[in-house]
Every structure is written in structure tokens, then in C-alpha cells.
């Protein structure tokens, strides 16, 4: 079986001349949980956006499930996009709209235009929205305005919106960078669950290597727009770490229950499992 996603020699040069991606090739198999790491500006966001063409690659090819994404236009591109969910660092909810409306936005790619304009989602879509909101534990907030929710709750709405698409691939752009450590784990666990239970392939960019080790089945490191490492999380030793993050870097731990996680060490197994109990994951 061909890979679910294949990136071939992707180059992205922004109008200012910044070479954000410099010949990136990558193949992602079904069911993988790929974590993208790298410094700010290493090209993680650009790479994710080249996959669903929110950013237009300068050259190279993106092939998704045997379809050439880079060649797709108009309706064909939208049909591809609806099979890729995406969640964002800043959640990107319509803040003035209700949680339910935000979730329903995930169905737009399947919805006839008149339903959007009339504001009348189908019964099936409505029930799917309730089901997905219940799944991420915020059904009770369905009729609240999105900006009335906490950061972690808003990100869960973002996940529900993406799940509404019934995607084959989930793109997550720094999904926990705006969240506190405990909430971060909660959100990552939802991603882990949709990866395990629904078999949705996940490509997720993260700042913290500790989260990458904990949740990723594979780590891809970008440096200066090139792939600096591609392999299992365990393969990143001190030497590799300095290669990716620079000589002066010190690994930072992000864990629940720590007030100041800066410069802390990677927890031992016992510490990590003790910490797990502090994670607040609502019933689902």
C-alpha cells in the first residue's frame, strides 16, 4: 500500500526571500503519530500548511492518498482539504460564535451552500456535532460563546471541529503552545486517542521534546527548512539534540504539577507515572 502522505522535494520561498522549506521529502504511513520538532522559524508551520495548501509550496509535490494535492484546484482541493483536519496554536475559533457553530464549521466541506447561508445544518451533522463535543467533554458548553471558554476547552472545540470532518489525517500546529502543562497533556491525550481509537494519522508540531517523546511514534526534526532528524523518539540523544536546537540548548521538561518546569530534567519513569494522575481528563 502506498503511504497516506508523501512530500516530494517541497521548497517554500516566501515573497520576502525567506527560504522556509528547503527540499523536504517525507513519507507518512497510515496510523503514524509524527511529531515535528525544531526551533521557531525552522519551517514546522509552513510544512504543515503546505500539506493542505493553506500555504502554496514554491516547488515540489504533495501526494495524499494517491491524489496530487499540489495539482488540485477549486472543488478538488476542497475535497482533499476536508479529509485533513487541522488544529492551531491559537485555536482559531470564531470567538463570537457558539461552541456548536464552531464545531459545525467542520462540516462545511460536505455541506451544500444553501445550508450554510440559511444556517440550517442537517440533523445528521447536528447530532455528529453533539457527539464530537461530548467526546471532548464540552457538550455542556455547546451553546456558550467560544470566547467564554478557557484555553484548554477552546482547543478541545478545535479538535471537535476537526473531527467533524471525519479526517484521515490530522494536522496539529503547536496545539499546546498556548496552554499550561497540565492542559497540554490533556489535549495531547485527545490526539493520542483519535490516533489509536479512530486510526487517524497525526502530524503534530511541538516545542517540547519531552512531549514529542511521550506521544510521538516518530519524530521529524526540522532545522533551517531541512529535515535534520527522522526516526524514533528514542533516537534523539544529547548529540542529536544539540544538532537540532543548537549548542547552547538545554532540554526543558514540560510536566504537570510543576510550577517552574524550566531547565528541569526528563522525569524518571516513577515520576512520570505519578504525574499522570494529576492530569485532568474529563469523562467521556
Amino acid at each position, binding site marked *: 500500500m502506498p503511504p497516506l502522505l508523501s512530500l516530494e522535494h517541497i521548497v517554500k520561498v516566501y515573497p520576502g526571500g525567506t527560504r522556509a522549506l528547503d527540499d523536504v521529502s517525507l513519507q507518512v504511513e497510515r496510523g503514524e503519530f509524527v511529531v515535528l520538532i525544531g526551533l521557531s522559524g525552522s519551517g514546522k508551520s509552513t510544512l504543515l500548511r503546505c500539506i*493542505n495548501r*493553506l500555504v502554496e509550496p514554491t516547488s515540489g509535490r504533495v501526494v495524499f492518498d494517491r491524489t496530487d494535492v499540489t495539482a488540485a484546484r477549486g*472543488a478538488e482541493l*476542497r*475535497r*482533499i*482539504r*476536508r*479529509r*485533513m*483536519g*487541522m488544529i*492551531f496554536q*491559537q*485555536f*482559531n*475559533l*470564531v*470567538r*463570537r*460564535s457558539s461552541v456548536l*457553530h464552531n464545531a459545525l*464549521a*467542520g*462540516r*462545511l*466541506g*460536505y*455541506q451544500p*451552500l444553501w445550508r*450554510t*447561508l440559511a444556517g440550517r445544518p442537517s440533523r445528521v451533522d447536528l447530532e455528529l456535532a453533539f457527539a464530537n463535543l461530548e467526546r471532548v467533554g464540552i457538550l455542556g458548553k455547546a451553546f456558550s460563546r467560544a470566547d467564554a471558554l478557557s484555553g484548554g476547552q477552546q482547543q478541545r472545540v*478545535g479538535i471537535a*471541529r*476537526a473531527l*467533524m*470532518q471525519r479526517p484521515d489525517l490530522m*494536522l496539529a500546529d503547536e496545539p499546546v503552545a498556548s496552554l499550561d502543562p497540565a492542559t497540554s497533556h490533556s489535549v495531547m491525550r485527545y490526539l493520542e486517542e483519535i490516533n489509536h481509537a479512530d486510526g487517524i494519522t497525526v502530524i503534530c508540531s511541538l516545542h517540547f521534546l519531552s512531549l514529542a517523546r511521550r506521544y510521538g511514534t516518530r519524530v521529524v526534526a526540522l532545522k533551517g527548512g531541512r529535515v535534520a532528524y527522522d526516526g524514533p523518539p528514542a533516537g534523539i540523544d544529547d548529540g542529536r539534540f544539540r544538532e537540532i536546537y543548537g549548542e547552547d540548548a538545554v532540554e526543558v521538561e514540560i510536566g504537570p504539577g510543576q510550577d517552574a518546569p524550566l531547565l528541569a530534567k526528563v522525569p524518571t519513569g516513577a515520576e512520570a507515572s505519578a504525574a499522570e494522575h494529576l492530569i485532568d481528563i474529563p469523562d467521556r
Partner: protein
Amino acid sequence: MSAKYFTARGLPVPAELGPAWRTSWRRWTAIAATLAVLAVGVRITDIDTSRANPEYAAQIVFGQLFRPDWNALFSMEDVESVWDTGLGLMVVTIMLAVVATAASIVLALPFSFLGARNIMSGHPVSLAVYSAVRLLFTIIRSIDILIVGIIGVILFSIGNAAGVFAIGFHNVGVLGKLYSEAIENIDQGPIEAVTATGANRLQVIWTAVLPQIVTPFIALTIYRLDANVRFAPILGFVGAGGIGLVLFQNLQLLRYPQAGAIILAIVITVAAMDFFSAQIRKRLL
């Protein structure tokens, strides 16, 4: 000054810390230039106060204008309907502004999307449309409302139609620009997210843009309605209808007590509009 800090360390001294005369030289030039412009202005405008007549002015203002003849507002003599009385004309003038504002919304609303950079960027053709629309708004705004009023009177002859035309035309330019800027100020994140779901352009606007602009649009519209109610009485001076026409006639006939009553009605109306529009906008935002 503290340039020593830099010289002591062998660092180049920033220009800002250079000799004091350099900054003061600029300052004195600016002051001298301003005074020179002012002097020339006073000279060529030739302000002549020798013909001022304070006693006459006091007699007119306090003796006649400030002793309003309320009949000018309420009297039903010589008029065909209640809308031709002073008060009736005040209501007509407000409605003139309301109708003109409504008409301008119909035009400004669709054009404002074409004049919003964040909606139109991404394609050279749409970007050209954006520039053209914004240029159009600017041209419309640069024609003073009284001039549009005069053109309206030429077009429709004296009366309310000219006033509606003047306010409506001018307001398309103002409201279009304000709407466009409101669209440009929205959060781009939801647009990106909704685009990523596979929605088409219209669905993106409907779902991610509209909810963000409804409140600012209402606030801006009320603000413009307030401004237009202010314009409407003045437009009567060029014949573009409303209570201003009657005020102008009374002033021409030196009927100051009648004019005083009308001016008072206008002041109260404008003040009330100002107050209510501020209250509503405060509650919205």
C-alpha cells in the same frame, strides 16, 4: 550629556546624544516656520474687524434669536400638512438622513468586501479590484457633502430628493471605508481554520468573517447615522430639502425669532442623537 558613557568605552556616540545645538536647531527652525506661515496667513486674509457692530449683534442675538417664536415650530397656518410645520420638518429631516443612510448601506456593504485587503489578497486581479474600490471610496469622500448637495439640486431640483442623494452618495464613501477597515481588522485565524475544513470562499466569509463584523458594522452604522442627522439640516442651505431650507429662508428674510426656534430644535435633535448613538455603541462594544 551622557555621551561620555559611550566615549569612555570607545563606542560610537549615538546621534541622539550629539551636540545639543543640533536638536535645538531643528526645533527653532520648526517654530520659525510655523510663525512665518501664521504671519503670512494673517497678512493675506486681511482680517478686518473695523466694521464690527457689537450693539447690533447683541440686539439681534439676545433680542431676537434667543427669543424664539415657537409658532415657527408648531403653527399650522399656511401649511398643508403636519409635516410642513417646523417640528414636522425636523422629523422629515431626520428621516431624510435615515433613508439616505439605509440606501448607502445597500451599496457600501457589498463594496466593502471588495475593498478589504485580507479578503481580496492572493490574486493579482482581486488585488486590483481592491485598489480600485478603495480609490473610489476616497474620491467619493473627497467631494464635500455640500457640493454633492448642489449637484443633487441640479439633478432633482430643490427638495428632499437632493438631500437624500447628497447624504447617501457621500456616506457610501465613508461607510465603505469604515466597513472595509473593520473587515481588515478581524482575526485571521478563523478564516484559516475554516478554509482548512474544505469550505469554499462564500462559506468561509459566511462562517468566519460575518460573525466577527456584525457588531462593528452596527456600531459604525449608528455612528454614521448620527453624523448624517447632523449634516441633513445644513444641506437645506443649498436647497437640498429638510428644515434647513426653511431656516435659510427665515434668515434671508431676517426673521430671527423664527430662525432661533428652528436652530434650537436642530441643536436639541443633534445633541439627542449624539447621546443615544454613544449609549448604543457603548453597549455594543
